[in-house]
């Protein structure tokens, strides 16, 4: 019986701004393979399906268990984490050849690696941190109710992977839309008993250009979020908060 093989088609690019090109790979199958182990095998073998010697495909990964957000890429046309993309399921449900591409909403660095620094810059823009008094021992903190924790914990699992920005039709150069992830962080911090001290500053940012009003309600974000964060709820709640805040501000003049 022929040894089972795994076929991949990968869109490569040698550097920023350079032309992209496809390469085919054909590697031996192993039990419980995921896309990460395919890329590891490709690095070890160092040849395309036609036997041509090539540099290993460059890609980002770290935890391999879907908590770090590093390994986002487009697999068979869908944005997802590559560590949880199991070969058995992909070949059974989506076809014999596995297609890998880098995300399109971020500049390519090399092959499957893209530059997601704008997401971290966005977290700075919306001041997604608790403005505590400092790190000296200030005694027991204010209690947080179980209800507040049950709302906050799912939102706190955002690993800045970029799936939601990739899937969102409103995220583009012209629109400058900040995207679901940063809005979700505002929702998280604005419900925390002490972090909400600067809630209005965060809302002001989201009322500016590229802010929350650019959300078109496509709801692609919730479909692709690997942590199933209720992003549209975060966006809706924050939208309501902006409306209330804007009215209050208007009447406070």
């Amino acid at each position, binding site marked *: 019986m022929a040894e089972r093989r795994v076929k991949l088609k990968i869109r490569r690019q040698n550097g920023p701004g350079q032309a992209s090109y496809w390469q085919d790979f054909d590697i031996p199958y192993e039990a419980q393979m995921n896309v990460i182990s395919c890329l590891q095998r490709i690095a*070890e073998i160092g040849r395309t399906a036609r036997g041509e010697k090539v*540099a290993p495909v*460059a890609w980002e990964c*770290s935890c391999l268990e879907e908590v*770090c957000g*590093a390994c986002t890429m487009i697999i068979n046309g869908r944005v997802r984490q590559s560590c949880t993309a199991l070969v058995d399921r992909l070949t059974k449900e989506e076809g014999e050849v596995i297609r890998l591409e880098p995300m399109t909403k971020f500049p390519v660095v090399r092959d499957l690696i893209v530059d997601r620094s704008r997401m971290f810059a966005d977290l700075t823009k919306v001041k997604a941190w608790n403005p505590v008094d400092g790190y000296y021992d200030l005694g027991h903190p204010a209690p947080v109710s179980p209800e507040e924790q049950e709302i906050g914990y799912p939102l706190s699992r955002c690993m800045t992977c970029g799936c939601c920005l990739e899937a969102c039709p409103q995220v583009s150069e012209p629109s400058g839309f900040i995207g679901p992830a940063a809005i979700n962080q505002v929702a998280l911090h604005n419900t925390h008993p002490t972090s909400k001290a600067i809630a209005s500053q965060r809302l002001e940012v989201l009322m500016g250009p590229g802010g929350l009003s650019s959300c078109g309600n496509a709801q692609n974000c919730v479909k692709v979020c690997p942590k199933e964060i209720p992003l549209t709820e975060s966006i809706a709640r924050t939208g309501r908060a902006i409306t209330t805040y804007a009215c209050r501000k208007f009447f406070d003049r």
Partner: protein
Amino acid sequence: MAKQRVVVVGGGLAGLAATMKLAEFGIPVELLSLVPVKRSHSVCAQGGINAVNHVTRALGDSEYKHFDDTVYGGAFLQHQPPVKEMCDWGERICDLMDRIGVMFNRTPEGHRDLRRFGGTLHKRTAFAGATTGQQLLYALDEQVRRWTAEGTVTLYEPWEFLGPVIDDRGYCRGVVAQDLHSMEMRAFRADAVVLATGGCGAVFGKSTNSILCTGAAGTRAFKAGARYANPEFIQVHPTAIPGADKDRLMSESARGEGGRVWVPRKPGDTRNPRDIPASERWYFLEERYPQYGNLVPRDIATREIFDVCVNLGLSVVQGAYCVYLDVTELPPTSLKKLGGIIEIYEKFQGVDPRVEPMRIFPSVHYTMGGLWCDYHKNDRTGGLTQASPRNHMTNIRGLFAIGEADYQYHGANRLGANSLLSCIFSGLLVAPGIDTWLHNLPAGSAADLPASLFDTAAAEHKTQENRLRNSRGPENPYTLHRELGQTMTASCTVVRYNRTIEQTLAKIDELNHRYQHLELSDDSQWTNQSLSFARALGDMLVLAQVIARSALLRDESRGSHFKPDCLIPPPKSDDPDEIHTEARRWCEAFRRQNDQWLKTTIATYRPGGTTLSYEAVDTSLIPPRPRTYGLVGAEVIEQMWRTMQQEQDKPSARAHDAK
């Protein structure tokens, strides 16, 4: 004098805690990380963070008991003052993390909820679902972002640490590092350098660690003269799920919430576990350790799994160490608290643990050993002197090591949920000491030093890189790494025999030789991952040899270092007088073992080969005692030990017995 600055290498819990505290002091920090800091390996920690709290105190717990649990769990190999200080700070650290916004699970009144964890009888562990490391890390990441926005901290991601810069007086004055995208190499001047670079699971091939946990950074400091301590102490976590690319951790919190470990009583029972009735299941940890049950410390759990699978042939997967971890009987509230890990099992195994018991295997998980570092004992409290630069300084002046990269807190075996504590504690502890260091620096600021020191250091690393780029031969770094992992896993994990370790040392020699004939398949000058990997492989080979040689030389069993050939034979006679004599002999052998081996292994790098030596351990606060954890059948040892302690305190009593 120009402004002094600090370089922190590594943005996990320890590195970020140090950075935010240094920033609070107004000290500029340059933080280097292989990945955006919130992707650091700390993000993988699942179960929780330990601290004595109001609930446990009401039940008779104390910081002293946490301290005792930790050194007992570590088989007394830790210096005790740093551990005492850490336990004393536990609650304040959890309060701080709570205050900065970590989404801990809550009680109805809004306090942090608690769970039980391994190696203790108290519920000390605060948690955020089953992803606690992630929430802690993200909260620290947010604080550091605040300081970055304000200008005190500058992030360098993805940059790789290549080595320290050391001046002719032996002071560390900075680092050489490389931008992993542009491959630009440069020196960073600094008046103190903190290495918070984690553990070395990648040396073993597959582990629960992230890909970037190679131990290369610590090894580079080691090669530059920093001593390495207790390298042979590698924790093998009892419950993980193996995959093609890594072993995925199934947190101890599954057991903390009531999950039970079992095997079918009948060897080779091929029935679906759901069809095996309770009477035909052997809950071996519960039976052997009635007090601690499924929450015995990890080294003990792993060894019991080994014994059950290998010696008794009861593994549920042929040829592997595999047992069941069963959460099917847990109430929905407990299962909810385990959401994150249940998700991992479902995503990777395609099986719902709520319905069918999980199959778990031991896996390399944590590095107790690490760079040697100092501490400043406070003779009045028995803990540490705060704000002393001796805390966490390596033997290289101005170079500090914290977090999993140091060796300070866990001895021969780490208790679950103590690492999140030790990482944050060491980061917060080192910062005020560095502040003191900077104020008293004898040689001014690194910014004022001549450029030649830094240019020379950077040029040396460039030369080494070119040597690697120009290397020719048939060898492939990925293949060599795979072979390294296989040999290290075979001889230096759960069970160690000198003859197999010697085979591994021979294999490492062979791999070192083949490493000289590497050829990189990527000659790009841009984002060259195989270059970085091949360079780290060289460091992993050095570290692997240090680990294996230290394991070879330590002829005893202690904590995670288990040599069946070096076990003290347990008392087993049926005759009550005979068993007392056997127990006394056991205790005397235990004392002799401690006299010979209760010492820190110290590795010092020499180009021709590492030298190993041993250093005494400060056990002045809690004297070592046999580590039985209430094992059924071991009561006679505990009784005999108490008797012998009393005899020591009253020599006349022994003389009376002998008559």
